[in-house]
């Protein structure tokens, strides 16, 4: 695992995610959880600009229509959005990995059928699923919520995790099944290894790298679904709806999470483009950071499978093996040179 920390791509990605997450808590600790509000900007005693105020040194990302500082809102909201996406992905993997292993191990014959039945999910837009199932939880009914914000967040995370479990589980099942055709697993089975042992000793270490990559992709997917839901006014932890027929406020997000900031500000695109751009760019930065982490991780792990510690099996010492490898390498280089010279 040490070499992951030497991959620049991984480090950059990790740094950015850590900055947003850690920064979010530090920011709240220093400035409190209410963003600074500016009602107008004065110049020589005259008000020159009212909210939404365009970006300046005082408000690097401008302010929203009520004068709240956008940068503060984004920093305060970062932790909710990122942690929720990570939780969704983690829960999804926790359910899908055992299921996938079971499909790949015990249902090998029925696998084509399982695949065929899961396959049509690919033709149904996920966001619509999410919207249908989450509206009764997140959209405030006229008489107010009957659940607490924590309950709603937990419900939302569970539902979002469950939605794509079938697809992720069959994906893992197919990967596991590929491994069953490998010679060393055939050998292990011939030697009498039980299925449980094969799962623990062979599948888990072989697939660990792929699972982590898959986890990263799931985090990215959940982030994107959060953004989509935000556009539909379904915010993390519930949407506060004002049912006043005359002067109803627009639907509000309860926390400052990014989906809410984005969903509320999208309509200001033409008049005040910094409003929707701020959260959208933050989404993009975090997603790119995770992509960089995935790429760095795969580069570090390329070809290396981390096995649990086991007894040494080799009959020759490490130095001998290393020397052999070096010899082989130099021979190959010579051979390659020969070939290019003769071309």
């Amino acid at each position, binding site marked *: 695992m040490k070499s992951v920390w030497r991959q620049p791509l991984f480090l950059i990605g990790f740094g950015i995610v850590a900055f947003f997450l850690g920064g979010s808590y530090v920011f709240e600790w220093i400035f409190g959880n209410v963003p600074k509000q500016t009602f107008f900007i004065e110049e020589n005693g005259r008000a020159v600009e009212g909210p939404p105020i365009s970006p300046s040194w005082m408000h690097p990302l401008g302010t929203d229509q009520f004068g709240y500082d956008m940068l503060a809102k984004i920093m305060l909201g970062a932790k909710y959005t990122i942690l929720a996406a990570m939780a969704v992905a983690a829960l999804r993997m926790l359910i899908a990995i055992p299921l996938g292993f079971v499909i790949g191990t015990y249902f090998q014959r029925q696998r084509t059928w399982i695949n065929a039945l899961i*396959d049509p999910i*690919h*033709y149904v837009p996920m966001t619509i699923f999410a919207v249908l199932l989450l*509206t009764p939880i997140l959209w405030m009914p006229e008489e107010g919520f009957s659940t607490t914000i924590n309950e709603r967040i937990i419900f939302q995370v569970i539902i979002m995790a469950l939605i794509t479990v079938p697809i992720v589980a069959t994906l893992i099942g197919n990967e596991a099944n590929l491994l069953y055709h490998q010679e060393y697993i055939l050998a292990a089975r011939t030697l009498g290894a039980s299925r449980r042992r094969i799962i623990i000793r062979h599948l888990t270490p072989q697939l660990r790298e792929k699972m982590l990559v898959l986890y990263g992709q799931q985090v990215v997917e959940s982030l994107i679904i959060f953004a*989509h839901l935000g556009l539909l006014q379904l915010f993390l932890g519930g949407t506060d709806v004002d049912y006043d027929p005359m002067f109803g406020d627009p639907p509000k997000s309860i926390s400052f999470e990014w989906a809410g900031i984005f969903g509320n500000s999208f309509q200001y695109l033409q008049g005040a483009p910094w409003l929707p*751009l701020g959260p959208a760019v933050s989404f993009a930065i975090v997603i*790119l950071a995770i992509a960089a982490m995935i790429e760095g991780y795969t580069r570090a792990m390329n070809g290396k499978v981390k096995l649990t510690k086991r007894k040494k099996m080799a009959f020759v010492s490490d130095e001998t093996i290393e020397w052999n490898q070096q010899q082989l390498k130099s021979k190959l280089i010579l051979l390659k040179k020969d070939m290019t010279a003769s071309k």
Partner: protein
Amino acid sequence: MKGFFKWVVQFVVALISILLISGAPQLITGFQKGELLWEEYIETLQFHMKSLWDFRDLSVDYYIGRGEVRQVPVFPQLFENISYSLQLLFLALAAAIIIALIGTFITMLLSEKSRSRVKLIFYFLESFPDILIILLAQLTVVVIFQQTGVLVSKIAVIGDDKIYWLPVLCLMILPMIQLYRLSMLTFEAEERQMYVELAKSLGFGKAFILFLHIFRNAIISVFFQSKKTMWFMLSNLFILELMFHIPGIMYYMSENLSGILFLVTVLSFFLPVFLLYSLGEWYFIRRMSRGGAAL
């Protein structure tokens, strides 16, 4: 025959699961109050089935402003919106496939080193969120309009006119990048096959081998793996229609998502795409089993 039976089962199971999910909000609402609303759930399902059965006079609720409900018949009014959505989807899909394949051809002709650089760039481009791409596209149009007074394309649909090329462009970009990366992977895997070596040693040119041999074999694998892209595109279409105010099917959904509307929407996308993919699979599998191309 066995394949056809399997296809029918697949189709029926998919339809039943979509129907079961369409009533799920009832269950979730009940669950929040701590009670199981099984009877209501089954009643909703029955109602949905009954309304789907006489689909000719099927209609969905549409909220105008606050509280006012208008009934919108599915045929012909909603059908028009659906066909507009589908047009956008398939136009973007076709454009994405064509550009991705052309891009793959060009990159495959490059040297190994520059290829890996191009691939890294596209890896990061792929992870751009769709909302940002649409936002940037709309902003660009606004800025161009403010600077030069030329309206490149409308960024929102007002009234009855339809806009095509900007939404298609926005919808196309991300699937194109995904397909490009996918086909690069399969083309490169295919390039390491023995028959390519053989063709090279026989003195055929790189472009010739690429087009005549690798392409034929790789395209099958690309097709089978492109389902994920399709899936992703469907969600994108949804967001795109919202952001462009496109009077497609999604427009009704953002106002009020009833079980019936969910069914109509999902089915109107599921049926054509499912048929398309089934046909494609049938064709490619037949071609493969004839021994025309090895996977």
